Each structure stands twice: as structure tokens, then as C-alpha cells.
């Protein structure tokens, strides 16, 4: 059956219900440029989504050397042919007329066009000068979660063994650092224990701070299809906003921001009190149970209810749901990761699963999610503040192993201290000890907290900034050298999603002008810097995506993220494959830890763990004493009150988040007509009670301010919890007259004008969801409603108060499903 729907108005498309344990039926989503028919397409080129972490497999339609659309890959294990709105329409950004096509260098205060030789010459000259005069610690690299594996790995080798700096991180620090840290705390090692296919089997799905409907729309389609089928799973939703997930939930908890640990401790308390504990599993596979039991002994539902401001009864209901589950799947995202006590809270979700023995079997999954499409690759390749291959910087053997692979002396690889996380790199730049910052594929001038501070840091004369991107972003406008990069569809490489599925993305078209693949840029830099190994051979021995992939395979061998059984050929034509993929497991591995944790032994583990309050590393000696047999670690955590709480002056909690139609700072999605018009401008969300208390109405222009700054936004009244104001964080300034900052003496548009500089001490992830704010009327509405979409968590409380979000004919996509017998066309 084939039909066509407006996928802006209906982001999740039609249903294909299915029962537990069955395969998720295929549904092929296609969107082609106006006037192009499938028959007219010259070539279909294999790829996957680069606009969220789901890793939806798709084919890029090419006609006359241009991208003209996309089609989901029905055979793929991740999406079975479905695509989300960003997938369907996002490709148009590639062809934007304002793509960067030539390098730019700063001359007399202005950025002017130059050739590659000039631009790279400046970067190399400054690098060498700094290395000579100030040492490797004066150079830092800040990358993204959107490059390809081959590019991260190359960058990691350049930074660690070429420059020899500790300062390399990705913006995955803002997004997925806590996921990685939580896994390391519990299992000794990164690597997702669950699989997306667990949705097919689960009888209970718990979403902790995870608005899956908007962050992973295709995964949500899978949940919706289960909900529409027989024996539907029951959902638990923890979220302060009335998300689509909340609407479908059997139990919805909307706690005060910053109280997740209190809530989770109460849930654990209830499970232990009612003895919903799989003692045999705990005995066989875990250490630390007694400590947890003692820690949560007093954390009753009533105790947590007072802290979280949710009914105690709802907490017991939630515990009942979790306690009676037979196949429990939990997912965690930014509502936990970007909030107070991020790692401590995420780890308690791991504890839930350990207590209930819900791991390693179909439907018993744990997904510490990523928001970014290739975030997993920064983690594997060590472009994120870890060593490549999940190696432990505190384990001399691991460092020696890496040194052997790179043929350098172990001392060349800095491991006297942990790799520097992004927020600390910016602090070092502020203080002047980092003098060169190379930023690839990310936009800190919009995405980091407390933007005026970030603009000041980037604007310093003594800091030499290189920005490598597709457009003249807010950050690029502050750079000394801007390098035009090629992107998805214009280069070849692989990337890995949150459930360890590796996809190949092939080059479909030529990049515009002189833009180059990020890999070529890094390789060019390495060549010009003439990095050498210890035998005076070139440090980087590869020259294209495939040879970079092979180099990475060697580095991954024997580690959990073993890629040795994968190849470009194996990935081409078929479906994505989950690592570890080896000779013994040539088809990949669907679930880790089917026989309990496998990488927690002191010799093997990636980390000995950290103190969840102070972030201080646990020593090897302590770890060995605590966990001599390499079991999973049940790690208890005490609840601490948030660092910035509400006051008379700032009575509301500020929450930030995203909408389904945009990605990051809108660098791409803001340039896509369907996505842009679905959510064209920043808005502020409040409950009806809070609006009434301030005499505010839908569409009023309000100022949301904190001690750090202010945002002007139109108001949307929703069913969000009382005591809170919400701002989407996507909006910056590139499409305003000012270009990279608010107009002088006016409130800004970027939510991060207001957010606090504070991060989780264990994962170092910034806390975008913990700040106190006030809201005041700037201008009464002229009748225009808030620009927020009506299809999502920002739906108005009174449906009549805003026109429905639709996309019109340009937003139509076809969806092609199997016939009723389930045979494929």
C-alpha cells in the first residue's frame, strides 16, 4: 500500500502495528524534490541519517549530479525503511547557496577569501610556533558528533600522538558524555548493553528524561507500532513536559528539575522494599548491592515526593510498573544527562536493571542514548576525551598497546592526567594557557552555556581559532581561519549509532567549490606538520576513507568495539551491522552482556570509575578491592540539592531542550524550508497557572532572564509542570542582522544566553537544565500565537489558541508498506 502524508503535520507517519516478538514490519518512506519521480533518479547512493542518533538507513537520490531526495532502506535493522522529518527534508541544506566554498582568513579584523595553501599555511605556522614556545598543552581540538569514524580516528591520532596534547574533545560532551560515563561506572566500559530491537520484545518501556518522540522519531515509530498492536507494552515517562511520550504513558512523573537522583532512589527503595530483586542475578553478576540498599533505606516515596514535587502515589505506581515488568527496556537522555547529578542519576537506571536482572535478553535492554548521530564514534575513537578503543588512560598496558599500534613512544601519548573535557578546554583558553583551538563541525558560540562568556573567549586576540564547517556559523564569524568542509552525501565514511550499528555512507555528489572532506583536511594538516613515528616514518599512514577504516580496525582489535569483522564491502548493499563484529561474530552482536558484564576486569576496563559527587577517579587498588572478579558495579549515590535553586528574584526553574524539526543550532535545519517554517523562531513555554499568575497570554512577547542573560520570546501556554519555563535551544543569530550575537542592549534569541556554567563532575557534561529564571512581559501579543509547533511537546493547552503546524504539499512524503500478508514488494 502506498500513500502520501504531510510529514510536518504528522512527523511519525502511518502505523504498522505488530505483536510482541514479531519483526517490525517494513515501511519505506520517500521524499523527492518537486517534479522528480523515482524513475527519473539517476542513482541511489547508500547512506544513513546524520541529523539524529537513530542511524536511519537511507538511499540518497542523485540526478544530474545533485541530491534530489531520499528513500528509507527497508532491509535495515534500525529503521526498516522509515525516515523522520529531518531525514526526509534535511538533505536540501547541502545545496544552500550560502555554503562556504573557499577558505577564509582574518585580515585587518575581517574574514577574507583565500586559497587552501594560505589558510593551511597559517594554521601550520601557528601550530609550530606554539609547539616551540609553549608546548603541546597550548593547542586544543574541539570536534563534533557528526563527522565520520575515519575522521575522528585520524584526528585522535593527530592530537594525541602528533601534537601530543591532552586537549581533544567533541561536542558529544554536551550530549552523550553522561551515557558513556554511566556505562563505564557500571560495566567498567563503554558500549550499549541494549538493542533497538528490544522494543519488539519489551512488555514495559521506561523513558527517563528522554523525549524519544522528538529526539529519535523513528525509534518512536517503533514504539507507536507496538502500542498499536496486541499486547502493547506499558510506558513509564519521566519528563517535566507534556511530551508525546507522556501522553502515551501508563505512568507519567513530572519531577522538579534537578531531583532525578531523589526520584530514582525512591524507585530503588520501593523495589528493594517489595523484594522485586533478582537475587540470583545480583549474586552472580554484581557487587555493591548492600551499599545501595543502605543508601536508599530511607528514600521512601513520601521522602522523594516532597523533593520532586510529584505525588508519592505516582512514585509507587511507577515502582510497581518497573517491579512487575518481565521484559523491561529503559532509555535515558538529556532530561538526565543535562541535569543536576547527571551521572549519578543515569547510573541509578543501570542499577534498576541490575537489581531486576534485566539485561542481555530480548526485551531486557538498557539504552543510554546519544543525541548525536556519530557520537558513539567519538567515544570509540577517542576523539571525546577517552583513549581510542575504550582504552584506560590509567592502565600502562593499554597505553603501551596504543603506542605500539601507532609506533610511537608511550610517553608521546599524554596520559599523566585524564584527557581534558570541553568545558575545561574553554576555561584554559579563557585563562590563556590554550592558545589555539581547532573547532570542527560544531558551533559553541550558540551551543555552550553562558554565551557572552563564550563569545568573549573566542573573541580574544591571543586565541587563534580555526573553524571547519559548512557555513559561516556564529562561531566561524569569530574565527581566524575558516575552512570549508564537505558533508554527508559529499564524502564517504562509516558511522555508528547508539545501539552500536555501523552504517556506511557513500559519496553521492561533489562538494561545492573548494570545500573538502574533513578527512582530507586532517590528512593535509598531518602532512604539512610532518608528524613522524618513532622510526621517523610518517605517523599517519593512510590516505583515504577506506585505508583510515582499516587503520581503525587494527586499533579496535581485541577491544569491545572490535571492528575487525567489518568491511566497506560487507556494509555496502546490506543493512547496518552491530559491533563487536569479528571472525567469531561475523554478523555482529545484537546484545552485550548476555552472560553478565564482560569488560569490567581491572585489566580490561576502560575506567576504574569515579566518585559521583566529586568526580575524583577511583584508584586501581580500590577498584581491584571492590571488584576483584570484574562484575557489574552497583553504585549508590546520595541526592544533593541543585546548585542554582529558585529564589524570590528568580522564582522559576529554567529548562531547555529541542524540537523534532531542528538539529543543534539550526546550521542545517534552519536552511530547510519545511523544517524552518515548522519552527521558525524561539518561544517560551509555561503552564497556564504560571502564565495567569503573571497575567500573560499566548503569544505575548516575554523576557526570560537569569543572572547571566536574557532571551526575548513569544509565549506558548502548555501543560508543562508549574514552576518551570522552557526554551528550545536551537536558535542563534546567523539569520539575524547581528550575525553572531544579540543586538546591543537587547535580549537575545539563544537560550544559552541564560544557562549556567556548571557541569557534572563525573561526566563533565554541562547542565543545561538547572538554572533559575524569571519571566516578564515585554509586549502584549497582537494576536499572533507563539511560534512553537503544535504537533509536539509544545502543543498549546488550548488547541484553539494556535493554528496547527502543517507543511503543505512541499512536505509530503510517500510511505510504502507491505501488503497484509507481510510479503515485500
Amino acid at each position: 500500500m502506498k500513500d502520501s502524508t504531510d510529514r510536518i503535520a504528522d512527523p511519525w507517519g502511518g502505523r504498522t502495528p505488530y505483536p510482541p516478538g514479531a519483526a517490525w514490519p517494513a515501511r519505506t518512506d520517500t521524499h523527492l524534490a518537486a517534479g522528480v519521480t523515482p524513475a527519473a533518479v539517476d542513482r541511489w547512493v547508500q547512506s544513513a541519517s546524520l541529523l539524529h542518533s537513530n542511524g536511519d538507513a537511507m538511499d540518497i537520490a542523485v540526478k544530474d549530479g545533485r541530491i534530489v531526495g531520499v528513500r528509507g532502506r527497508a532491509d535495515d535493522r534500525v529503521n526498516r525503511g522509515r525516515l523522520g522529518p529531518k531525514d526526509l527534508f534535511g538533505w536540501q541544506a547541502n545545496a544552500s547557496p550560502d555554503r562556504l566554498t573557499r577558505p577564509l582568513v582574518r585580515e585587518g579584523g575581517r574574514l577574507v577569501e583565500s586559497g587552501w595553501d594560505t589558510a593551511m599555511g597559517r594554521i601550520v605556522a601557528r601550530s609550530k610556533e606554539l609547539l616551540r614556545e609553549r608546548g603541546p598543552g597550548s593547542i586544543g581540538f574541539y570536534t563534533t558528533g557528526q563527522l565520520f569514524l575515519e575522521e575522528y580516528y585520524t584526528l585522535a591520532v593527530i592530537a594525541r600522538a602528533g601534537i601530543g596534547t591532552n586537549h581533544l574533545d567533541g561536542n558529544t560532551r554536551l550530549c552523550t558524555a553522561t551515557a558513556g560515563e554511566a556505562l563505564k561506572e557500571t560495566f567498567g566500559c563503554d558500549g550499549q548493553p541494549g538493542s533497538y530491537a528490544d522494543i519488539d520484545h519489551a512488555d514495559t518501556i521506561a523513558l527517563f528524561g528522554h523525549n524519544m518522540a522528538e529526539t529519535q522519531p523513528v525509534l518512536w515509530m517503533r514504539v507507536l507500532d507496538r502500542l498499536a498492536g496486541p499486547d502493547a507494552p506499558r510506558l513509564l515517562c519521566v519528563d517535566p513536559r507534556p511530551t508525546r511520550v507522556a501522553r502515551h504513558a501508563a505512568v507519567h512523573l513530572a519531577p522538579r528539575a534537578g531531583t532525578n537522583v531523589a526520584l530514582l532512589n525512591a524507585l530503588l527503595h520501593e523495589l528493594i522494599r517489595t523484594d522485586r530483586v533478582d537475587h540470583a542475578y545480583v549474586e552472580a553478576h554484581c557487587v555493591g548491592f548492600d551499599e545501595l540498599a543502605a543508601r536508599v533505606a530511607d528514600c521512601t516515596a513520601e521522602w522523594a515526593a516532597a523533593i520532586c514535587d510529584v505525588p508519592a502515589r505516582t512514585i509507587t505506581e511507577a515502582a510497581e510498573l518497573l517491579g512487575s515488568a518481565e521484559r523491561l527496556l529503559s532509555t535515558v537522555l538529556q532530561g538526565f544527562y543535562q541535569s543536576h547529578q547527571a551521572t549519578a542519576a543515569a547510573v541509578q537506571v543501570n542499577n534498576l536493571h541490575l537489581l531486576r536482572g534485566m539485561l542481555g535478553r530480548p526485551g531486557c535492554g538498557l539504552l543510554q542514548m546519544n543525541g548525536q548521530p556519530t557520537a558513539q564514534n567519538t567515544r570509540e575513537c577517542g576523539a571525546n576525551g577517552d583513549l581510542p578503543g575504550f582504552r584506560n588512560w590509567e592502565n600502562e598496558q593499554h597505553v603501551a598497546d596504543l603506542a605500539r599500534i601507532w609506533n610511537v613512544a608511550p610517553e608521546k601519548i599524554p596520559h599523566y592526567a585524564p584527557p581534558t573535557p570541553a568545558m575545561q578546554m574553554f576555561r584554559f583558553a579563557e585563562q590563556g594557557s590554550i592558545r589555539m583551538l581547532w573547532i570542527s563541525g560544531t558551533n559553541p558560540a550558540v551551543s555552550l552555556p553562558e554565551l557572552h562568556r563564550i563569545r568573549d573567549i573566542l573573541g580574544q586576540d591571543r586565541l587563534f581559532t580555526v573553524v571547519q564547517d559548512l557555513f559561516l556559523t556564529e562561531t566561524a564569524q569569530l574565527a581566524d581561519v575558516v575552512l570549508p568542509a564537505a558533508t554527508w552525501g559529499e564524502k564517504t565514511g562509516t558511522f555508528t549509532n547508539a545501539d552500536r550499528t555501523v552504517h556506511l555512507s557513500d559519496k553521492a555528489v561533489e562538494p561545492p567549490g573548494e570545500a573538502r572532506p574533513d578527512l582530507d583536511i586532517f590528512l593535509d594538516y598531518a602532512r604539512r606538520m610532518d608528524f613522524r613515528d618513532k622510526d621517523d616514518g610518517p605517523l599517519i599512514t593512510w590516505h583515504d576513507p577506506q585505508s583510515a577504516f582499516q587503520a581503525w580496525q587494527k586499533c579496535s582489535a581485541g577491544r569491545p568495539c572490535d571492528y575487525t569483522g567489518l568491511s566497506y564491502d560487507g556494509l555496502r548493499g546490506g543493512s547496518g551491522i552491530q559491533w563487536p563484529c569479528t571472525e567469531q561474530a561475523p554478523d555482529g552482536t545484537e546484545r552485550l552482556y548476555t552472560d553478565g558484564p564482560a569488560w569490567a576486569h581491572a585489566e580490561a576496563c576502560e575506567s576504574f570509575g569515579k566518585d559521583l559527587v566529586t568526580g575524583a577517579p577511583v584508584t586501581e587498588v580500590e577498584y581491584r578491592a571492590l571488584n576483584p572478579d570484574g562484575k557489574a558495579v552497583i553504585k549508590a549515590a546520595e541526592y544533593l540539592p541543585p546548585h542554582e535553586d529558585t529564589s524570590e528574584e528568580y522564582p522559576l526553574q529554567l529548562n531547555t531542550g529541542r524540537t523534532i524539526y531542528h538539529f543543534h543550532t539550526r546550521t542545517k535545519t534552519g536552511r530547510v524550508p519545511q523544517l524552518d517554517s515548522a519552527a521558525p523562531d524561539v518561544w517560551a513555554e509555561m503552564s497556564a497557572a504560571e502564565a495567569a499568575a503573571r497575567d500573560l497570554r499566548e503569544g505575548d512577547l516575554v523576557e526570560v532572564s537569569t543572572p547571566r542573560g536574557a532571551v526575548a520570546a513569544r509565549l506558548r501556554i502548555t501543560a508543562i509542570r508549574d514552576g518551570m519555563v522552557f526554551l528550545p535551544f536551537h536558535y542563534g543569530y546567523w539569520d539575524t542582522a547581528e550575525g553572531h550575537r544579540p543586538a546591543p542592549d537587547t535580549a537575545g534569541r539563544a537560550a544559552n544566553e541564560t544557562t549556567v556554567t556548571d557541569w557534572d563532575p563525573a561526566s563533565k557534561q554541562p547542565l543545561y537544565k538547572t538554572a533559575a529564571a524569571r519571566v516578564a512581559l515585554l509586549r502584549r501579543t497582537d494576536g499572533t500565537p507563539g511560534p512553537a509547533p503544535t504537533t509536539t511537546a509544545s502543543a498549546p493547552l488550548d488547541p484553539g489558541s494556535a493554528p496547527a503546524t502543517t507543511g503543505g504539499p512541499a512536505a509530503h512524503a510517500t510511505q510504502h508498506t507491505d501488503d497484509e500478508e507481510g510479503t515485500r514488494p
Partner: protein
Amino acid sequence: MSGITLVLKALHHGERDLEEELLKAAERHRTDHEIHHVATDIARWSHEHAARLADTGRHYGLDLSGPADDPSPGFLATLREKAAEAVGRRPEPGLLLLHDLRDLHLAATGNSLHWEMLAQAARATTDSRLLDLATACHPQTLRQMRWTNSMIKTLSPQLITSV
């Protein structure tokens, strides 16, 4: 005064002192955000310890609930002056931070040793009240020490070599 009351008194003083120093360091290093927040969080532990020590002290004829003694001026005063001159953009505050962390570490270590003494004395006298107190509080003191130590380890390479 018995040996036990001496240790209780010294420990009470030490915990109060550490709380105050942690809070001052948090204030001085506002622009080093992790230091600021973690120091504030773990000052709470010392606060609790001091309160519990005062509570326990009563059973040993001690009144520890009065105002805190003045911490010795000299070094802290100098630091405060320096901090006043220091602006967020100069490298010197980095060295000042290392110095503060070192002092905090030594203060926490002092407390840790006192907790050890108290626990040993409690064992010798089979005083379960004291042993429970030490067992409950000492681990947090160790966490304070580990934090200062690990911050020094992490920050020294950058802060010392860049001046």
C-alpha cells in the same frame, strides 16, 4: 581532659575549619566552575561532621557548639589579597588555585588522621558510639582528600607549564 576529648575537639575544629576553607575557595575560584561547585557541595560534609561531633561531644562532657575559632590569618589573608588582584584572565589565579587545593588537601588529611585516631581509640575502648561516628564520617573525609588530590593531578600539568 581525656585523650578522647582532645581528639574530638581537634577534629571538630578541623572539620569546621575545612568547611570554611572549602567555602572560601569556592568563592575565590568562582570562574573555575567545577572547583566552585564541588567545593561547595563537599563543604556540606564537613558541616555535617562538625554537627555530629558536637552532638557526640556532649556525651563526653564537651561543649563544642560555640562559635568557630578564627582560622589562622597569615597565609589565608595573603591569598585573599592576591585573589583580589587576580582577574579571571591571568594565569596566576591558576597557581593560586593549585595552592588552595594543596591547603585543602592538607587540611582534609589532618582530619583523616584524626578520624583514624578516634576510630582506633574507639576500638581500644570498645566504644561503639565513637566507632559508628568515625565509620560514618571518615569515608567522606577520604573523598574530600581524593578530590583535592585528583584536581591537583589533573590541573598541574597545564597550570604550571603555562606560566
